């Protein structure tokens, strides 16, 4: 399995994919963190869904993580696209047959691929954290935010917890992308389906019928990344997300194991 992971990391570290993804994540993180801080004194919404985050809130221990977790949804969508394309392209390029000749255990291929993409997701979240903290620290004086509470033990513990939650949310979205990639066997179809579902359909559904938020996969993945919300608890979202992913992954794993590789 680790040989598969090593091989996959060679593909994931290619400059066109790695640098462009890092730049997109860094730019989005910098943009959204800047909005949180630069609009902190405007009295208007500067957080998710019009939430108002005041300089006083930003000066507390939680101030360090606002910029970090505000882009968690976009990190998830990025992971969805990367996981889906890296999986489905093996079919569209015809390279799956090469992989299976060199590693006949299909479950090892799947596990090795998944591990490599989790490593990629960790890198994305680390970049998100570094950029968000750096931009927050740089913009804090402009927003009249004091940073003394940011580096206390409780703030760092919160940072660690947020890191884990954002990572879990990102991996959940990525896993959803991998499931779609294995199901559709086409990068375009799997990415389009994943993005349209998560970014558009789920948000419309959740906006129109708020009770669906509790049940929609993407909403729960994001809620895990946010550490829970007043309407849907963290543990509920963890349970629902895990149920969706375990079921989905089990189905596609069986398909992957049994399906003839005829292309």
């Amino acid at each position, binding site marked *: 399995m680790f*040989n*598969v992971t*090593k*091989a996959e990391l*060679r*593909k994931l570290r*290619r400059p*066109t*994919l790695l640098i462009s993804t890092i730049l997109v994540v860094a730019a989005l993180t910098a943009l959204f963190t800047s909005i949180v801080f630069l609009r902190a004194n405007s009295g208007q919404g500067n957080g998710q869904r019009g939430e108002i985050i005041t300089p006083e809130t930003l000066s507390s221990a939680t101030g360090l993580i606002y910029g970090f977790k505000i882009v968690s949804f976009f990190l998830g969508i990025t992971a969805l696209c990367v996981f889906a394309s890296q999986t489905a*392209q093996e079919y569209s*390029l*015809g*390279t799956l*047959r*090469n*992989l*299976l*000749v*060199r*590693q*006949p*255990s299909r479950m090892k291929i799947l596990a090795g691929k998944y591990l490599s993409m989790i490593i990629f997701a960790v890198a994305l979240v680390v970049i998100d954290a570094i950029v968000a903290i750096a931009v927050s620290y740089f913009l804090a004086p402009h927003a009249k935010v004091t940073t003394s509470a940011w580096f206390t033990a409780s703030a760092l513990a919160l940072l660690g917890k947020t890191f884990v939650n954002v990572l879990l949310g990102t991996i959940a979205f990525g896993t959803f992308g991998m499931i779609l990639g294995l199901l559709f066997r086409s990068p375009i179809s799997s990415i389009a389906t994943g993005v349209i579902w998560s970014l558009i359909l789920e948000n419309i559904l959740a906006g129109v019928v708020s009770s669906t938020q509790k049940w929609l996969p993407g909403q729960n993945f994001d809620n895990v990344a946010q550490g829970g919300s007043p309407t849907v608890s963290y543990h509920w979202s963890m349970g629902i997300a895990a149920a969706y992913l375990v079921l989905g992954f089990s189905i596609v794993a069986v398909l992957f194991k*049994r399906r*003839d*590789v*005829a292309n």
Partner: protein
Amino acid sequence: MTTAISVKDLTKIYGERSALSHATFEVPLGTVCGFVGPNGSGKTTTIRMLLGLITPSGGTGTVLGENITHPERYLPRVGAMIEGPAFYPALSGAENLRVLASLGGFPQERVASLLEKVGLADRGGSKYKTYSLGMKQRLGIAAALLPNPKLLVLDEPTNGLDPSGIQEIRNLIKDLASDGTSVFVSSHLLSELEQISEYLVMLREGEVLFSGRTQDLLAAQTATLIAKPEFTVDLSKLVEIATRHGHSASVEGGAVHIVGDADWGATLNRLAFNAGITLAELTATQPTLEETFFEMTGE
């Protein structure tokens, strides 16, 4: 273990269509075996089953002495290029090989020597998407050689190669065979296969038409005598003489083609002489693999 590949009643059915039906053949160890058949005859399906990519609907088989139901036991000793090369376009040729070397746990040092071996040393750093068809084919062969294989399975390895490239691949296969590597190679270039294949498996519509030594197949075919009289007016007389003695004959391109062994050439010469015909040329030809293939497959 005396066979590199052995299959018995190997069958693959897709829905109601039979892609391969009760195929039975053996490929001895250390030989080059040609695998021929028209498009859609089941060659690639057979190769995919041998490599564990698709599950047989019936029958049994072994590769390097191991059952094909456990490809993990023999694939580390098998190199393969199936249905043309397939690589990651955004990676260089060398990086593509490194991906496969990592995957199979092979030393990365092999990559440079294999690129050298297939004539891609100077383009190994270029992205795969910039490669010509011939270069892609060479990279595919390099990938197949990564495990230093005991059995090499090549599906149309000369596709897209120019004549010198085809000759290089032919020499490469010969070199590998002389080192004891078994090679199972499918190709539409039958003249190439005739030169390198000691054994042959021929398929048509999913069924094995022939499997055995190439020489045995060719020797079993009836030879043709080509007789060219001094004067073209004698062409029809020659046809009549041959037909009268039980040989089918026809006029093709200013000569008479007579189905018959080379031994009958002397008799024909004497009969023609007695009939007042002078033969300007008399040649006995054995059918080539290509002619035999067309004859057997009805293509």
